[in-house]
């Protein structure tokens, strides 16, 4: 292989590639890079002629339409854009006026979390207590001493977890590297004009589009795609992150990476895929490259200075030597023991933070193999390394001289260019187009020149290509909500990029396909503009011609839009956790209450249907009996058991016979009122889980929520009671009943047999937590009402607290857009 005989002058520094105190020799202007030093003696005026051929001033890929057009109808699955930066950022007054800065709004996230996931937030407290304390003795002391400590530790833990989650989410938002490399590939077919697009489809991107073939696309001489047939699908076991195709020795190979699996197919000449190999990756795959039928698995043995879960590996010109990159740099490693002499630190684009506190972060390396279909593709050992940092830069590095980049370009893309495609030259002697795709959908095209024995250079000013958002003008104007939905859809991150150049056209045509995170495939045609003539000639090209929408294009967009609007809007990202009622049923059985639980109830639970009156056999329709005397707990459970079995009246009579006295009569009336308040608070609490949604309905999202009043202790306790397994709730409740506040009135109020019916009949479905909280002081006045110490009741209560269980099935499902998306 030829090595460029004379490299362009460059200063060499150890340490960071992007940063140093010596002057940066690569400037933002592309013309500087386009200049060449005359190799030998310049022939005076001929220099211009010598140096000029690379300087194609009129090098421009002219788009046919102002934006890309949808190639395929939108998928039937709804799509939700997910978390945005705005959701996490602090709003409102801010001390930093001079320079706006990133501040994550933690308070809001925390309060949201407490609102939305009270069960998760408060349940650990109960769990902690259960494990460490027996509630029979020393209850009082424990509750006084333990209360604040437990409360704090749980909140601390919660804070830490939230912090971790926020960091993770924020980093993901800054750079989502899952789709590095791109999940869209063009498999060339029998003729250059026919090929297949391979891409993941479906709401979770886990279907690889295929028919008997993958999506076959035929390109007309003008470059317009013609979709042939309907693609079928290969359903995979996880979302597809990357699709790579390459032609190796005349065979088209297709490699697919999902989070924990990598798979390899061979695509026959007829376009039929045949599976070759599947690899399971325990630690999670982050990159896949394809050559020589080898799927590379990230070795764990490499030592890097920074923890970086993301790794990227690619082949070099030597099939057994690989480049392995992570966020801190790139290494050349040799997979053969024999050649280990050449291993060791190679391209260190970035260095550890001791050198500089802000190293540029490496976001991708790629061996530039153009998608030539010839059996021997271009084998120039060039690698593309892109980095994020204060400047988004792009480096072209020759693996033979890894420490000095051949080309550096500050691409200025507003998002990380995770996708890069080097294409074959559109015509002999033309520079190769290098496509860069930013995550945000932006596209840039660089013209790279310099074959074999000369250094790679930019051959002209880079060019931006229209992104999907530019197509908005092709769609008819809609009512705001749909318009917003369309905009969101067009703005979806780009996760795949594929291109095909039609070689034989008189005017080379570049067909560009984009895949968005919403699963849409868009297509655009670009024509290479003919040389506008001698430079300096004031031609009409001073202003690049602007493309306009054709009626066909707008019709295509309208059709697509119609299909899109038929897709139902996305369901909320977060839904309340559901538990299997069968599991609950097993709990009931375990507790040896067989024979006592009515068959009807068990059958209803087993079937998961709404609990009805008749399931509970014959409940007394008579006036509910008044509360009993406060007595030992056994009595209460006895009574509740009787109530469950429908023999409450008989029990009552028995009880009356045991302790009848005229002195008790005046108290009875008072109790009844207390009891009713207990019920309303109980039903309020039961509504709690159901009623968290109203404050988060979409219309209230925009305005900042008023500060959350710290929940009172009772509220807290009720909250954590919700997440505790049902079999433990009673113990918890026992404990709560003994809390100092209630100590003066021991003994819980009994629940009348009509409880279940009152639960179902509760009219206040929309009651909010605050309503509930408002009732709590009442409860404090009548402390005995707070405890519901019956095993049956608690098991019944546990059912509604799990949300979306049969009893509450009449309520509306959650319709909210959670901020955190937990």
């Amino acid at each position, binding site marked *: *292989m030829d090595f460029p005989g004379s490299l362009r002058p460059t200063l060499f520094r150890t340490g960071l590639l992007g940063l140093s105190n010596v*002057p940066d020799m690569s400037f933002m202007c592309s013309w500087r890079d386009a200049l060449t030093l005359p190799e030998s*003696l310049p022939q005076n005026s001929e220099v*211009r002629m010598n140096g000029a051929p690379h300087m194609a001033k009129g090098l421009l890929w002219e788009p046919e339409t102002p934006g890309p057009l949808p190639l395929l109808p939108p998928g039937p699955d709804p799509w939700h854009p997910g978390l945005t930066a705005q959701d996490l950022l602090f709003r409102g007054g801010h001390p930093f006026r001079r320079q706006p800065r990133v501040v994550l709004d933690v308070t809001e996230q925390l309060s949201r979390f407490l609102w939305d996931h009270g069960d998760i937030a408060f349940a650990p407290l109960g769990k902690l207590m259960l494990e460490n304390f027996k509630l029979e003795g020393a209850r009082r002391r424990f509750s006084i001493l333990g209360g604040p400590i437990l409360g704090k530790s749980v909140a601390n833990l*919660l804070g830490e977890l939230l912090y971790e989650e926020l960091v993770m989410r924020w980093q993901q938002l800054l750079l989502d590297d899952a789709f590095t490399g791109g999940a869209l590939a063009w498999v060339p077919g029998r003729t250059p004009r026919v090929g297949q697009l391979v891409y993941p489809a479906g709401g979770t991107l886990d279907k690889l589009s295929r028919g008997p073939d993958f999506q076959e696309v035929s390109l007309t001489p003008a470059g317009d795609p013609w979709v042939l047939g309907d693609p079928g699908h290969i359903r995979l076991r996880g979302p597809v992150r990357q699709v790579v195709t390459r032609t190796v020795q005349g065979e088209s190979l297709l490699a697919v990476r999902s989070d924990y699996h990598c798979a390899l197919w061979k695509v026959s000449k007829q376009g039929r895929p045949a599976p070759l190999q599947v690899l399971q990756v325990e630690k999670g795959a982050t990159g896949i490259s394809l050559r*020589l039928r080898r799927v590379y698995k990230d070795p764990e043995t490499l030592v890097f200075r920074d923890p970086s879960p993301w790794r990227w590996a690619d082949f070099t010109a030597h099939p057994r030597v690989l480049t392995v990159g992570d966020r801190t740099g790139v290494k050349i490693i040799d997979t053969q023991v024999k050649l280990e002499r050449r291993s060791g630190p190679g391209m260190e684009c970035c260095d550890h933070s001791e050198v500089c506190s802000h190293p540029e972060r490496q976001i991708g390396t790629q061996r530039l193999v153009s998608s030539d279909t010839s059996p021997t593709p271009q084998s120039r050992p060039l690698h593309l390394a892109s980095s994020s940092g204060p400047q988004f830069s792009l480096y072209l590095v020759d693996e033979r*001289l890894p420490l000095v980049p051949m080309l550096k370009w500050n691409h200025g893309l507003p998002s990380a260019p995770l996708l890069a495609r080097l294409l074959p030259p559109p015509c002999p002697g033309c520079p190769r187009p290098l496509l860069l795709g930013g995550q945000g959908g932006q596209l840039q095209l660089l013209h790279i020149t310099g074959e074999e024995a000369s250094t790679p250079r930019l051959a002209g*000013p880079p060019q931006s290509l229209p992104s999907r958002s530019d197509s908005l003008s092709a769609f008819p104007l809609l009512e705001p909500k749909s318009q917003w939905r369309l905009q969101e859809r067009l703005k979806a991150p780009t996760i795949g990029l594929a291109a095909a150049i039609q070689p034989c056209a008189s005017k080379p045509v570049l067909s560009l396909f984009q895949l968005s995170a919403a699963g849409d495939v868009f297509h655009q045609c670009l024509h290479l503009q003919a040389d506008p003539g001698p430079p300096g000639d004031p031609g009409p090209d*001073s202003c690049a011609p602007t493309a306009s929408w054709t009626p066909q294009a707008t019709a295509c967009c309208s059709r697509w839009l119609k299909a899109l609007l038929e897709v139902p809007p996305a369901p909320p990202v977060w839904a309340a956790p559901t538990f299997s009622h069968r599991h609950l049923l097993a709990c009931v059985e375990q507790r040896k209450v067989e024979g006592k639980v009515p068959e009807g109830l068990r059958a209803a639970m087993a079937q998961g249907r709404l609990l009805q009156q008749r399931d509970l056999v014959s409940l007394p329709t008579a006036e509910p009996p008044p509360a009993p005397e406060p007595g030992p707990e056994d009595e209460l459970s006895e009574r509740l058991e009787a109530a469950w079995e429908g023999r409450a009246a008989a029990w009552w009579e028995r009880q009356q016979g045991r302790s009848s006295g005229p002195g008790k009569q005046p108290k009875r009336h008072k109790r009844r009122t207390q009891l009713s308040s207990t019920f309303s608070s109980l039903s309020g609490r039961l509504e709690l889980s159901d009623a968290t949604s109203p404050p988060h309905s979409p219309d209230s999202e925009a305005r900042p929520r008023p500060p959350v009043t710290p929940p009172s202790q009772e509220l807290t306790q009720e909250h954590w009671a919700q997440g505790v397994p049902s079999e433990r709730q009673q113990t918890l409740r026992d404990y709560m009943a003994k809390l100092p506040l209630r100590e003066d009135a021991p003994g819980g109020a009994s629940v009348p047999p009509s409880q279940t019916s009152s639960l179902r009949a509760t009219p206040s479905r929309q009651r909010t937590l605050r309503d509930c909280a408002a009732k709590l002081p009442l409860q404090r006045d009548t402390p005995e009402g707070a405890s519901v110490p019956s095993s049956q009741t608690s098991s019944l209560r546990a059912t509604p607290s799990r949300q979306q269980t049969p009893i509450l099935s009449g309520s509306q499902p959650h319709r909210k857009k959670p901020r955190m998306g937990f």
Partner: protein
Amino acid sequence: NSEACGLRCTESMSDFSEELIKSVTEDDRRETCELSGTGMQLPWLQKHIETVDTGGKKEKDFAQTTSACLSFIQEALLKHQWQQAAEYMHSYLQILEDSDSYKRQAAPEIIWKLGSEILYYHPKSNVEMFNTFADRMKNIGVMNYLKISLQHALYLLHHGMLEDANRNLSQAETWRYGEKSSSQEVLINLIQAYKGLLQYYAWSKKKRELSQLDKDDYAYNTASQSMRDHSWKTSVNLGALIQIPGVWDPFVKSYVEMLEFYGDQDGAREVLTNYAYDEKFPSNPNAHIYLYNFLKREKAPREKLISVLKILYQIVPSHKLMLEFHRLLRKSGSSQESMSIINCVKLFVQTLIIMTVAEKEEHLKLGLEVLFGVLDFAGCTKNITAWKYLAKCLRQTLMGSHLAWVQEEWNSRKNWWPGFHFSYFWAKSDWKEDKTLACEKALVAGILLGKGCRYFRYISKQDHQVSRKKIKRMKKLVKKYSIVNPGL
């Protein structure tokens, strides 16, 4: 209780936020120094923050319009709308009066970068316009004087205006501002080196003129004298820069050419040795190639040449010089075979001094290794010379009963070379494209993999009148030397 906890959590969070803030501000500051972007780590984020985070306090109108203008210019540039970009640029110049001193200081460089880009590509611009603009910009932000001068000179050089370029560089060379910083020094060195390069161009023009003149010609002496002047100046100019670590291929090349021309072989050798072996320099393959070529011109002993190429082999085992390296090694290794007795006696004395038999064997072995190394690379798979050499080398090595050497090389390759080189696909396509290559490859395949290998079978079955003889010979050799079942 929970209030306190809430506070605590918020505290730990705000540490995190502080960290973010810190990083962002520092980046910001750096950004304003480096002036290369929209001001933040992630431009899209910047917008969010501007709208969300300022809490109603909007940026000043002036800052808003200038930053909007900047993004319009960038957009126009990326769409190749030069005229539009130029119009926006006209408005953007007002940033030079920004009240924000950071931005004001940063402005000239941005204007230079964008302005020069527009002027370079604008269909109506010309060199005079570019010159005027460059001269203006040099003096607006004094800090950029050197950088702009250098780029301006390169522009002129590229347009064939060597004298203007030279004048420009001479002016810049003497320019000083404030304390001499290290970056200034490097830039001045660079400027001097480019000036040296220009002088080299002039020198080499003179040299060519001189070669056309008769030595007795009157003009010869003057020309020769002026050449000497140029070379002296050049050496002064180039000498300083090439001491600084970097890639200075064009400078080193021209400097060495002049030194050699005036017979300063030692000086040239020193420059090249330093360029190749100084550890502060990146391991530039060209440095070793220049040194090798120089030594070859100097007719240096073979050992010396081998030692230079040995290092190149470590850096770029796929380089085309590796085949030459193999030839050198083979010659050095087998030199004793073609020696007369007298020479042998002579050699006996020599070998004690120069090389032992073991060293010769080492060279032969390395020669084999080098060939295998070259053919490992995807770009060299069709190099017919390499295959020819390998076939010959394998035969000789096996004849010399060094089967172990071959096996050592082959062991690390036997699991992938068959698919990489000797597949059915390659057999078919090589035979179609280049029959000689196919025959050489088939011979190697036969030796390494035996008669049963797909590649060998395919080629040996071909019945082609031109290569019939070759194939016959190939079959014979494979039968004799195949390392598969060597006992048979």
